[in-house]
């Protein structure tokens, strides 16, 4: 059975379709793997093993359904995404006992496509963090090195895929929260164009930045997942009323990069990269050239403002988004609350962790009377300039390429005491969210020094996920495979 786990999602689909592997086999293999590896990595907050097995058995009894592109595929969902009847905590005490009675649209679509929910992935509390250390419940370890963080905030999703516990996982990406863990854990993850996947049922952090996306072993696997979840949803006003192209076809058919113009922004390739990250990324760019890509230098001059802009926007929105967690209708209520003020203040002070509280205070401050213009409005103006940088750069290229992170996975606790240093780690990922554009991170090798995965980002034009997925698919065929970590 363990050879099942070495299959990609696409490979598994073929085996499920010809019944050489049953849905029950797939689920059992994953559950065994979870049992073996979970004590070491703690990627999951909830495992829905029994329900998954029951569902798989029923599906096997009925036989494969070719109309369901994910028939029998076990998947994990980040705990920020609502799953009907399954606890959805956002890794926060304040939602510790929250069991939604509705599915997020993306989850509903996965289920309709035949996917089987295996469990819920750990994360930074309310997706606020870059290391998954801000979870209120457990610290997920990087499967490649148990002393390192998996990245964040979708660290559980990155780790569970890297460890072979499932075939794909959902993450959310507000400022790099899919791409950073994908990079640190050596898997592929894509943040689609803002509006591509419905946010309905996805617990909001920064509403104008948040997007759901898949993390999986290959670009092709990501394409299959993306396909299923994409498209307008009447329950989300920000989801785009536009056609969804055939991502899977665009991805699988691309074998070379002939004529593709890769833009290398000087701001992403300058000082600050560790030698091993630079070496792996350079090697990937060379491989791309070998496949026929043309490399052009581009500029994203407002990159230096991106972190400040991002944190103002994200924290402002978060301060408002998190107001609903008040202990009135659901979630944690402090047992000692005697009056209304107590109810709010005691519940929220004990229910939220410190990073969340810090961001709520900052976000409240930048929106408050007298400061709005200097912070929030100013940031929104710079945001337009940052997006314009990309639009300008895409005049000269088709895909923008750069490292996902200046360094490989850092040590547990290494940056935990200095929030600003932690924020600065997001330098290469956040501009994309401010711009609303799609981007993915793919593994391009193991760092010579650390032996940890290095991720390369590809940014695409709005709605052009197909191009970056195809390019990633072609490029990965020309690179040495990093394989699976030994845990």
């Amino acid at each position, binding site marked *: 059975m363990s050879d099942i786990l070495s299959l990609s999602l696409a490979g598994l689909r073929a085996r499920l379709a010809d019944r050489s592997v049953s849905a029950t086999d797939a689920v059992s293999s994953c559950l065994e793997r979870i049992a073996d590896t979970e004590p070491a990595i703690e990627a999951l907050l909830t495992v829905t093993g029994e329900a998954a097995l029951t569902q798989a058995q029923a599906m096997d009894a009925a036989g494969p359904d070719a109309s369901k592109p994910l028939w029998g595929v076990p998947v994990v969902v980040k705990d920020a*995404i*609502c799953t009907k009847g399954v606890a*959805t905590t*956002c890794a926060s005490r304040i*939602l510790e006992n*929250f069991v*939604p*009675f*509705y599915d*997020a649209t993306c989850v509903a679509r996965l289920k309709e496509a035949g996917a089987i929910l295996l469990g819920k992935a750990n994360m930074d509390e309310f997706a606020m963090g870059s290391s998954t250390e801000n979870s209120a419940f457990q610290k997920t370890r990087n499967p490649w090195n148990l002393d390192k963080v998996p990245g964040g905030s979708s660290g559980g999703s990155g780790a569970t895929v890297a460890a072979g516990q499932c075939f794909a996982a959902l993450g959310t990406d507000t400022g790099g929260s899919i791409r950073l863990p994908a990079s640190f854990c050596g898997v592929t993850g894509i943040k689609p164009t803002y509006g591509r996947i419905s*946010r*309905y*049922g*996805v*617990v*909001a952090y*920064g*509403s*104008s930045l948040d997007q759901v996306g898949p993390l999986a072993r290959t670009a092709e696997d990501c394409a299959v997942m993306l396909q299923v979840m994409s498209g307008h949803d*009447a*329950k*989300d*006003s*920000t989801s785009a009323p536009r056609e969804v192209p055939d991502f899977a076809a665009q991805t699988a058919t691309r074998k070379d990069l002939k004529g593709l113009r890769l833009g290398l922004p000087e701001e992403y390739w300058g000082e600050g990269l560790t030698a091993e990250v630079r070496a792996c990324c350079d090697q990937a760019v060379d491989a791309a050239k070998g496949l026929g890509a043309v490399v052009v230098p581009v500029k994203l001059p407002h990159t230096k403002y991106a972190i400040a802009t991002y944190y103002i926007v994200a924290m*402002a*929105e978060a*301060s*408002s988004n*998190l*107001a*609903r*967690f*008040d202990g*009135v*209708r*659901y979630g944690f209520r402090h047992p000692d609350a005697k009056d*209304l003020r107590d109810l*709010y203040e005691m519940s929220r002070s004990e229910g939220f962790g410190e990073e969340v509280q810090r961001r709520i205070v900052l976000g*409240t401050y930048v*929106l*408050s*009377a007298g400061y*709005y213009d200097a912070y*929030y409005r100013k940031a929104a103006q710079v945001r337009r300039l940052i997006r314009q940088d990309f639009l300008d750069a895409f005049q000269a290229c088709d895909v923008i390429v750069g490292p996902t992170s200046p360094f490989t996975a850092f040590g547990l606790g290494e940056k935990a005491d200095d929030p600003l240093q932690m924020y600065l780690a997001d330098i290469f990922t956040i501009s994309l969210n401010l711009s609303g554009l799609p981007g993915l991170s793919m593994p391009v090798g193991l760092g010579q020094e650390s032996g940890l995965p290095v991720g390369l980002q590809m940014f695409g034009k709005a709605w052009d996920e197909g191009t970056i997925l195809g390019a990633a698919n072609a490029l990965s065929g020309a690179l040495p495979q990093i394989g699976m970590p030994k845990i």
Partner: protein
Amino acid sequence: MAEYEAVIGLEVHAQLLTESKIFCSCSTRFGNDPNENVCPVCSGMPGVLPVLNERAVEYAAKMGMAIDCALNPVSVFARKNYFYPDLPKGYQISQFELPIAEHGKVDILVDGVAKTIGVTRIHMEEDAGKNIHSATDNASYVDLNRACVPLIEIVSEPDMRSADEAVAYLKELRSILVYLGICDGNMEEGSFRCDANVSIRPKGQEEFGTRAEIKNVNSFRNVHKAIEYEIQRQKDCLEDGEAIVQETRLYNPDKNVTASMRGKEEAHDYRYFPDPDLVPLKLDPAKLEQWKAQLPELPRVRRQRFENDFGLSANDAATITAERDLADYFEAACAAYAQPKKIANWIMSELLREMGEAKLAAAQLKLAPSDLAKLVKLVDEGVISGKIGKQIFPDLFAQGGDPEALVKAKGLVQISDSSALEEAIDAVLAASPAEVEAYKGGKTKLMGFFVGQVMKATKGQANPGLLNQLLAKKLS
């Protein structure tokens, strides 16, 4: 002592008559069991998102058109952040910087003087739920049926100078909303409510005085009383050398006072910002054309038409057109019998009195307009006297039906047959020889006595014109 002038601006909240809520598909029906009209969206569950109701946009736009506002082609929903148990998301979605409509006006008439009141803006927003405070246990109960029900807020310029003007403006606004069919105008249920900003300044002074915002005024009468009270209170303050504090005051209708909410309400900092879940609202020009074409005749125009075409007095025209249903009723009656002034008289006197006593609106009446017309016609043609008409009106009002049939059934047809009447006259004259003598001797005032006697004998059914004529002849 300085002479002061009041400066009044009103903020009116009108609940829109949509089937579903503004951002979700829950019913807006009033009176359902608590928390039955509630879904994840209007209860602020994690992860859920608002989607705007097209009908709410239509209604807000129509109100904008009706009061000559400029409609903004793009308007923006913002979040107004504050904590309260009836506010599930911790913010209210409301338009702030860019509302759907701005710069409108409403014409009013007070004591025959016309005046135009400016409307600053109309914006769309969601209502909050309801907190019920228990008297018996240490708890409050939250019902979210009302949360997310669509409202428009209509903000006036500080153009009113008296409580009378404020009430006239409110009545006109309410009338327009009801004409448009976008609000039921029910003040008791809170679907039409108002806050008043009141300040005073010495007459002739340009700049405004410090204003107080008066909340909780839920009838025209209370608006009037609260404003009068507040103006007097502020005058007293200034005359005592006290400064007026900018604050929110709550009107207490039982004591007829306004009381400061100071201390009970912390300083708010609502931290408005554009709601990223609702991208800007763009008004479709084709839709706007369509909605404009659907606008009904509005109260002001109808009032003018009733004066010009039907010859009604300004007062009658204003009263009858104030409620769209009553104006419709009047026109239907006129269609059945083309005597608008007479019909108006019956409405102004008999019908409105009965409606007031029975607390019924024009749309709920049992008496059909065509039957009211018939009644007027019966009186007009002398089939019954006006007095009899008024006598039977309460019955007709209560049960409805054909007045002619009722008159016949009750045997109330007027005696217009001179021979039948002559018999009755003869009998009365025969029974009152002394009075006849006196009359003939010059006491002509006794005519009234004879008329009364004959009326009594005929149970009021004698045609008064004919009776007078015959009596005069017999006594000459």
